[in-house]
């Protein structure tokens, strides 16, 4: 990466943007392959919101990097070790229950995060958060609707939904374990203490699971450090695909 992206506020914006971009990218993989036409369209809408949100964070980050850095430089020219997203959001889609479990866990976190970011000491971040909160409320309703329907649907959907919760719950500890990027953001008044979001998150998720007549699985937490650039193996493949064109034609603009 030819740009200096070490500035802590840039790092924080990248962290926020990377979650949105990577999850939006994953959801966009559903486009054309959804379980029913109406849901195909709904998933694309959420993907559009998330990639749109990522752009806002990256544009702000690029401005702060300066020297002509662009949002696309940040998305397409960083290596996986420079990405700051949670490991949860880069996980492959799996079946529809997997996608909805991943989404429920992230949406609940994202909602609480944005709620806090509305009062960010970084006025530009606060402005982005205010707008995104409305969209994210809708995303959270959408994933909750589905977790409830799959949990309380048929035998098969219930089994799949329970398995999906079990698969993704271990990834959620990272959401509430402060990494360097969170600690700095909290110290400077840009973002919340992520550990403090755990209680409200448990509450939101539990409410949905109860409606879904599902138990919260007892599973050990994974030790993850995506926010410090140590990702799962799947991110490398995701980026290889996503970044292929600009890297194959480095002199071109698109």
């Amino acid at each position: 990466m030819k740009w200096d992206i070490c500035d802590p506020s840039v790092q924080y914006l990248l962290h926020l943007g990377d979650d949105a971009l990577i999850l939006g990218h994953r959801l966009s993989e559903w486009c054309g392959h959804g379980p029913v036409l109406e849901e195909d369209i709904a998933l694309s809408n959420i993907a559009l919101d998330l990639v749109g949100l990522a752009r806002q964070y990256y544009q702000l980050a690029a401005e702060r990097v300066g020297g002509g850095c662009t949002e696309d430089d940040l998305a397409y020219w960083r290596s996986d070790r420079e990405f700051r997203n949670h490991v949860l959001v880069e996980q492959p889609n799996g079946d529809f229950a997997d996608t909805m479990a991943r989404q429920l866990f992230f949406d609940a976190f994202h909602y609480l995060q944005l709620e806090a970011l509305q009062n960010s000491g970084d006025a530009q971040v606060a402005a982005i958060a205010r707008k995104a909160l409305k969209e994210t409320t809708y995303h959270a309703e959408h994933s909750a609707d589905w977790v409830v329907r799959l949990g309380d649907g048929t035998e098969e959907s219930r089994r799949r939904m329970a398995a999906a919760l079990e698969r993704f719950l271990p990834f959620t500890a990272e959401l509430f374990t402060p990494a360097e990027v969170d600690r700095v953001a909290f110290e400077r008044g840009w973002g919340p203490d992520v550990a403090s979001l755990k209680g409200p998150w448990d509450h939101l998720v539990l409410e949905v699971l109860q409606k879904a007549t599902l138990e919260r699985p007892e599973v050990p937490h994974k030790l993850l450090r995506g926010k410090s650039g140590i990702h799962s193996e799947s991110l490398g493949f995701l980026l290889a695909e996503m970044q292929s064109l600009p890297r194959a034609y480095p002199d071109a603009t698109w």
Partner: protein
Amino acid sequence: MAPTVDLEARFLDYVAAENKVEPKDWMPDAYRKTLVRQISQHAHSEIVGMLPEANWITRAPSLRAKLILLAKVQDEGGHGLYLYSAAETLGTSRDQMVDDLLTGKAKYSSIFNYPTLTWADMGAVGWLVDGAAIQNQVMLCRTSYGPYSRAMVRICKEESFHQRQGYEIMMHLARGTQEQKAMAQDALNRWWWPSLMMFGPSDDKSPNSAQSMAWRIKRKSNDDLRQEFIDKTVPQAEFIGLTIPDPDLKWNEERGHYDFGAIDWTEFFAVVAGNGPCNTERLEARRKAHADGAWVREAATAYAAKHSARRAAPSPAASKAHAA
């Protein structure tokens, strides 16, 4: 049966006077059948047409391009939905239509059986394939069946952005590096002829055309639509410095139209018959999505049944109780 003949004659007068036919109106059986076939085929084309473009969403070379392409492909899903709904007003369920697609009984536009190999194909598809589709769809806004016409009006409003985004991609590539320009020209070379085939065979070889025109389902001939498309598109290609891959293409002052070379209809019929480069993959993808989604659809149905008392419209018994 004299009364039937009379009705059919009156029906022809009715549509000839530019009246719209609505779901509850009487219509000839053949009119209904033709519409179901045409509208569902059109809907299938929108849905299958999502696949070649969705193929590049995860590889779009900029975030802006990614958003535009995703929104565009999502729009096509919406178009499929509007069209299935229009066809449903004629008494055929969406399930039935989807079944016909997945079993190979129903057709969809052959253009989507060609592969999208480079990013420039996103430009060529938007510019040429959506462009050709729009030519047809603008005409269909005035089709005689009300629900179909209204669906087309909605679709046309959304389509204009599709062609423009495609052309913008081509323009950008054509003005880019040598490699980008070559990519754009290559895409035009591969998509030009299949796009012309989208309008279908010449009218003298297209047995249903005359009947469709009489019913005012169709308002212009295949050849006229094709000619309009060529006349419109050639200057657009020239403007960005790309060459249409047709040595016989030239302006005919007398006709006021471009003359163009012969279309290879054997290729067209081979693709229609299922032997295009991607027929198998496209149908496989649709079958897989449908099969993988079955348990999801069933789950939502089961949930709705369990909770219907609370959520759905009040049952007759409930509303009676309320009234009392």
